């Protein structure tokens, strides 16, 4: 039994366990249909989660490797040469081509495979049917395909790490002509083709998933579950899915044109190029900037695809553990909607210094800074949710509070970068790196952790170890700030990003000590993530068992299902919903589940 459960004793323990057994044997399942080609949304969600975790470890390890080079440029680490060979790590030092391959793959993996596939894939699949009150997704089969396309994309991307010329190395944005010309870089050879193939499969996966999420949310809500009775998690996932469905195809089209330029002799992105080694290419009339427009038309919504689900998870966790309703439910939905619309109208703020028409630039400044308004509403609403609550610091709650803190910090630096005047100085410097890591990377991952810790009992019927979770939170949270806060100063000094070594520069060589510090903290923080991974897998098998259906005292539907729900989620009828999901502390009651009818004198929210 959980620490918290004892405060709100629920007396249905033995009954639950019986229902579990019953539900499990609902229909016959083999190992393959249950764990591999499963069509159960809960299993697919776990598949996404664990695949995402494996990617997170690989991507995180890459950052440790390149931080090693940045922090300790003079050292020779023999083990690097032993493992990676003398082409990539001669004399135990990360070579430039290896460094660029690492930063490129780190970005691609973390942005797409962890924070999109891992985050949306896990929580959209897990929560939509459980919180809307559905037996499964609208199309379980497409849902399964969505995971297997993701898996395929993963395999292709993983393969690219092992080919002779290495994986893609033109940055996660893969701007042509660098990414289009085999002679321009080692990473633009076979690795780039695999990158494009993998991304194409990823887009397919994302579309199959997204369409499913949207149709399930719109069509398969249980009786009484009107849209305004949906938890904010579901709203956030709905908007995320809409963003993905509308923007990922644009990326795909951009990548297909890139593929044509690489192999079919077209000139969509190529013009006036004389490649080192002495040959002028025949291509004329293309525009390298066109790719950037196509890329960022996805690329910018993509950062909201990452942050919106995290916002949804955090809103839910904050409310449950403050024992208070989320403040301003309609404003929260409205601001999610506003962010979704604005997400499509700001892409060119990544391109202020590409020679974009200054007037066009000014329009994008206005639209970009507009996003700060709905973001501010969300932050103040979260703060007010905490105000006069009765806060339980469960691990999930800690991560949710951490999320709000990093989202504020990173959001505010966005106001710097969105202002084209300041972007002239800050563009493509370490300031940008610090900004998006805090606001998207760290916030996204903190939100994801909040979700994992909160719904782990529902996923596996066990708890994770609390003490390890607390250690994990505090070191991760402090580590994230120690890594990325000082990095802003490097950016203000103009240090360009994606530099392997700053020592030869008169303007940029003043931060040697700081880089060493950042690298050291990054390694410690990474090590603590391994502790989390261990805690996760250990707890699946050995964690304390969950003994009550509703360990957190939550109002939402997933906690009315059996502790280990079978395929179909509820053994009998799907419960009916009578109220909004945030009736905490109402009328002197700790919480009122959504399934409870309104009292005769009670007013609906």
């Amino acid at each position, binding site marked *: 039994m959980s620490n918290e459960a004892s405060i709100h004793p629920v007396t249905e323990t033995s009954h639950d366990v019986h229902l579990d057994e019953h539900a499990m044997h609902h229909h016959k399942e083999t190992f393959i249909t249950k764990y591999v080609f499963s069509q159960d949304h809960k299993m697919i969600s776990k598949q996404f989660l664990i695949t995402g975790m494996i990617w997170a470890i690989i991507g995180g390890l890459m950052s440790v490797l390149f931080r090693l080079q940045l922090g300790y440029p003079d050292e020779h680490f023999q083990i690097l040469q032993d493992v990676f060979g003398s082409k990539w790590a001669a004399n135990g030092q990360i070579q430039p081509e290896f460094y660029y391959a690492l930063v490129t793959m780190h970005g691609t993996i973390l942005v797409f495979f962890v924070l999109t596939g891992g985050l949306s894939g896990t929580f959209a699949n897990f929560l939509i049917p459980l919180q809307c009150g559905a037996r499964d997704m609208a199309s379980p089969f497409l849902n399964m395909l969505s995971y297997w396309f993701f898996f395929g994309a993963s395999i292709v991307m993983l393969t690219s790490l092992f080919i002779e010329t290495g994986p893609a190395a033109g940055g996660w944005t893969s*701007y042509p002509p660098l990414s289009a010309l085999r002679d321009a*870089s080692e990473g633009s050879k076979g690795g780039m083709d695999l990158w494009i193939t993998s991304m194409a499969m990823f887009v397919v996966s994302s579309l199959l998933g997204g369409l499913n999420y949207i149709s399930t949310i719109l069509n398969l809500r249980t009786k009484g579950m009107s849209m305004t009775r949906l938890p904010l998690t579901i709203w956030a996932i709905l908007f995320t899915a809409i963003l993905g469905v509308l923007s990922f195809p644009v990326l795909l089209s951009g990548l297909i044109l890139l593929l044509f330029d690489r192999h079919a002799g077209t000139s969509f992105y190529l013009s006036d190029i004389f490649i080192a080694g002495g040959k002028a290419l025949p291509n004329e009339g293309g525009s390298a900037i066109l790719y950037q427009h196509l890329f960022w038309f996805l690329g910018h919504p993509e950062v909201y695809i990452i942050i919106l689900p995290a916002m949804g998870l955090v809103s839910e966790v904050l409310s449950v553990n403050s024992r208070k309703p989320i403040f301003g439910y309609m404003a929260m939905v409205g601001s999610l909607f506003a962010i979704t619309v604005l997400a499509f109208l700001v892409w060119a703020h990544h391109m202020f210094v590409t020679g974009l028409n200054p007037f066009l630039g000014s329009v994008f400044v206005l639209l970009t800074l507009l996003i700060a308004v709905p973001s501010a509403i969300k932050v103040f609403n979260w*703060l007010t949710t905490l105000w006069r609550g009765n806060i339980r*610091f469960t691990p999930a709650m800690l991560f949710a509070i951490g999320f709000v803190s990093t989202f504020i910090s990173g959001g505010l630096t966005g106001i710097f970068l969105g202002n084209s*005047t300041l972007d002239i100085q800050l563009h493509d410097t370490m300031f940008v790196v610090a900004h998006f890591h805090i606001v998207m990377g760290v916030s996204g991952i903190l939100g994801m952790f909040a979700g994992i810790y909160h719904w782990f009992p529902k996923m596996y019927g066990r708890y994770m170890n609390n*003490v390890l979770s607390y250690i994990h939170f505090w070191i991760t949270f*402090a580590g994230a700030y120690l890594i990325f806060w000082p990095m802003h100063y490097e950016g*203000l000094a103009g240090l360009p990003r994606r530099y392997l070594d700053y020592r030869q520069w008169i303007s940029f060589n003043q931060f040697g000590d700081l880089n060493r510090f950042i690298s050291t903290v990054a390694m410690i923080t990474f090590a603590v993530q391994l502790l989390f991974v261990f805690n996760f897998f250990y707890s699946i098998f050995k964690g304390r068992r969950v003994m009550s259906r509703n360990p957190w005292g939550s109002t939402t539907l997933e906690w009315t299902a059996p502790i280990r729900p079978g395929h179909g989620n509820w053994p009998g009828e799907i419960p009916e919903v009578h109220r909004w999901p945030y009736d905490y502390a109402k009328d002197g009651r700790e919480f009122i589940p959504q399934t409870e009818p309104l009292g005769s004198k009670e007013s609906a929210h």
Partner: protein
Amino acid sequence: MSTFFLILILLFGFLITFQIAKASEYVGVLKGEKKNFEQNNKVNGFLMIVFLVLGLIGVYWCNEIYRGKILGESASVHGEQIDTMLYITIAITGVVFVITQILLFWFAYKYQYSEKRQAHYFPHNNRLEVIWTVVPAIFLTVLVGFGLFYWFRITGEAPADANQIEVTGKQFGWIFRYPGKDHTFGKKYYQNINDGANNQLGLLWDDPYSHDDVVTGEMTIEVNKPVKLIINSRDVIHDVGLVYFRQKMDAVPGTPTTLWFIPKFTTEEMKKREGNPAFDYEISCDQMCGKGHYTMRGVIKVVSHEQYVIWLAGQKSNYDQVMAAKTPAVAEKN
């Protein structure tokens, strides 16, 4: 060997942490769930306030350490405007940052679980929500206003008397071209580029305007005179980053871009101002361009008007160099 030792220590640390965590879970069960929860909650609530205090001290301290290392002297007129804009933004966001972070951690600490407390049912309040929609909107309008005012000044047309210099990026270096006495750049075509024949930019010798064009590997400009850069690339996208002039512009193959600024100090003056005898204005490539990206350094010498005129007069045009190489005898007579 030491690496294995390190990994061993790491594993050992993991093991100990895990054992402690497991043990404390058992202790928690023995103590009673409720008591254990309350103790954990107190510790974490306390850590919230510790984090806030240490965090704010850390922010202040970080500022103290790095204040002198960021934003070296702004050496152009545009740079001053950008710095002003930066300080306005830091002031506004700084206030918001401090207030919201204090509220966040203070609320977390103050309203931590207590048996006596009953959470307050407070689902919404229209007036509050209007306030924090309107107030941020006002501040953002101010920032957009200032920002665009400076933006149009900086990106506006260069003055007519500006010196024009063409900058071309390549993997991994910079090529500069001066239009010569006729103030007009000669025509060029990339298919004509021939490094072996000393024609790095593919100038067309048929065009007489190209004959006095000077091509150099280092940029020299004169102080207090507007200079307009016309930026090109020969292969992939590069970026002309001028950190002391606070300027930046991509170099895109096939699509020329421009920027302009007025340098305020000569290189010699900056050596004194920065207290660094080795100082030079540097051009850094700020757009990922391949394995040599981080080494793609250019140098700009800012000199007085007199020095500039003398320097320019001493340069031999690209055309003359090429012709001299072709017919050495003729060249010597000239």
